[in-house]
């Protein structure tokens, strides 16, 4: 028997050994131990994120090391003004953006996988990314956008608008009676193809310069970030995460199927509506600000599920932390893989994400 199996047998034995009289306490105690291990895992994830963040802000083409970076960050002795600007205007915003986007996409993915009862669901399954790409393409290639917007916000505002509208369309369709999770996923796939076709059409007529700009946008980059975007993302997460966490038991119950959850008193339609609303806000903002970042929303929740299971008291924070850590590591790798070159972070996350994803699928099949 393998070690985890032995552990499980031991823990179950704890329950059986006191079968008379104290059986209840033994089971509850053994479960209490399991909960403590999960809390510890969350703490480990948070520590890994903190470590990744520190290394991320200490890495960059300007050659500032760990010590110099912190001196520059806090204006300590020996730090020049330029170094301070590098830290506050370039490295720190990028590192924070990576964490926020990773957290947002992974949390959105976790919630989406639960409400759609589909382990392959991610913010992009329902066409959010494709819709955002269409919005960005319209702005970059045809210059179409909302009137009165400053030029720097043209692309993100358009991307957000299209992403959000796409989810609203799905919401409206899903409100029809008889539209279950499967139908929602199929409608999402239909929207992905529809938006991608429109994007391809725009690319076909685009000028060379606009096409180049658009292709770069689709690669996903945190280089164009800033404190305003960070504040918007942070506020979105500060609203979404507590709301998700408040629904933790209802989301866990939904894992047992719609009928059972409804019979337990879970208002399934309302839960799905508000969850989709949160997901659309998080995913649309992320895609709008940094472009297409693949796999974080899909793989982040899978890793969290393997670590802490699907008790959403642990699954939601763990997903948030795994996504944030993945993006933070991807940000670090994007600066260090090829010295002197800042790779688009979307490329790195996909390259890191694909092997993890394949390994997860094979592991699942091997069971």
């Amino acid at each position: 028997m393998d070690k985890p199996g032995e552990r499980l047998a031991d823990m179950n034995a704890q329950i059986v050994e006191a079968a008379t009289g104290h059986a209840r306490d033994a089971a509850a105690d053994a479960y209490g131990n399991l909960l403590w291990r999960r809390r510890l895992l969350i703490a480990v994830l948070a520590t890994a994120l903190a470590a990744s963040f520190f290394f991320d802000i200490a890495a960059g083409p300007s050659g500032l090391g760990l010590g110099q970076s912190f001196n520059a960050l806090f204006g300590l002795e020996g730090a020049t003004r330029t170094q301070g600007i590098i830290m506050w205007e370039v490295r720190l915003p990028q590192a924070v953006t990576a964490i926020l986007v990773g957290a947002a996409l992974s949390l959105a993915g976790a919630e989406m996988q639960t409400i759609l009862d589909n382990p392959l669901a991610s913010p992009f399954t329902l066409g959010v990314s494709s819709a955002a790409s269409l919005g960005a393409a319209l702005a970059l290639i045809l210059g179409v956008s909302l009137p009165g917007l400053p030029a720097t916000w043209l692309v993100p505002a358009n991307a957000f608008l299209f992403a959000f509208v796409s989810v609203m369309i799905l919401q409206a369709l899903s409100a029809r009676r008889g539209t279950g999770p499967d139908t929602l996923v199929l409608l999402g796939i239909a929207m992905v193809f529809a938006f991608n076709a429109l994007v391809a059409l725009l690319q076909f007529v685009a000028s060379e310069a606009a096409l180049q700009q658009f292709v770069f946008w689709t690669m996903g980059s945190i280089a164009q970030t800033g404190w305003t975007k960070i504040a918007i993302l942070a506020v979105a997460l500060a609203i979404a995460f507590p709301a998700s966490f408040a629904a933790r038991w209802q989301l866990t119950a939904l894992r047992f199927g719609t009928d059972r959850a409804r019979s337990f008193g879970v208002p399934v339609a309302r839960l799905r509506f508000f969850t989709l609303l949160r997901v659309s806000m998080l995913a649309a903002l992320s895609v709008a600000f940094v472009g297409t970042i693949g796999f974080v929303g899909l793989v982040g929740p899978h890793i969290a599920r393997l670590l802490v299971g699907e008790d959403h008291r642990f699954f939601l924070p763990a997903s948030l932390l795994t996504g944030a850590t993945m993006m933070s590591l991807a940000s670090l790798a994007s600066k260090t893989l090829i010295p002197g070159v800042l790779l688009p972070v979307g490329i790195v996350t996909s390259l890191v994400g694909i092997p993890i994803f394949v390994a997860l699928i094979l592991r699942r099949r091997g069971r």
Partner: protein
Amino acid sequence: MTERSLAINGLTCGYPKHEVLKELSLPRICAGSVTVMIGPNAAGKTTLLRAIAGLLPARGEVNFDGRNLLALAPTELAGLVTYMPQVLPQGVALTTIEAVITALRVAPDRRGDSDAAVHAEAAAVLNRLNIGHLSLTPLDELSGGQRQLVSLAQAIVRRPAVLLLDEPTSALDPRHQIDVMSAVREIAIEDGMIVMVVLHDLNLALAWADTVVLLVDGKIAAAGPPEEAITSATLETAYRVRARVERCSQGRLQVIYDGKSV
């Protein structure tokens, strides 16, 4: 105190273009009793349970304790009625005890309870069903029979007044079938629950039911004590089979199938 009971009058429900049950009425079902619904596939057994649980739009009256359950808000109904579907879904990354704790925690009146109290109650229910030793086993590692018992544990931990079980023995070996049905009967009596169970195994129905309701095409073909509802004649009408209902050497009624009726 008057005995709690459930009565169904003129229940009509089904799907947008297909009404499965039309003006169905059931005799009064008393607390502490087990009513078994039998009938051929697509007779409306599951539809009836889902309608009572508020999972399907329905017209008519389902009276419990002087209240029409169909008129109650979903959360209020969930406090009184629990429906257990046929299977526990696959691929849920939770342990056995977590499945039961979740069922308890989503109950509106249990959200404020301490963790210790909820954990102890979940453990007690698992022990009651003799699956306490599986508390920390992941659901995906359980056998079909064990999964049915976890499913039952989720339902009974909520202590509903009305417990609706849809084919709880469908994946079980004979020993586990007895385990489940004796647990169901014990719960009905000890906790004073109204239990309605859908079964396909007529011998189980004969052995464990206080009342049997035979449904055919959304209508009641027979209802009453098992020996009155399950007869050669009713089985031929409902299932189009030739069957005998005879007492075994130990005096228990058994259904023996002789073949299809012409």
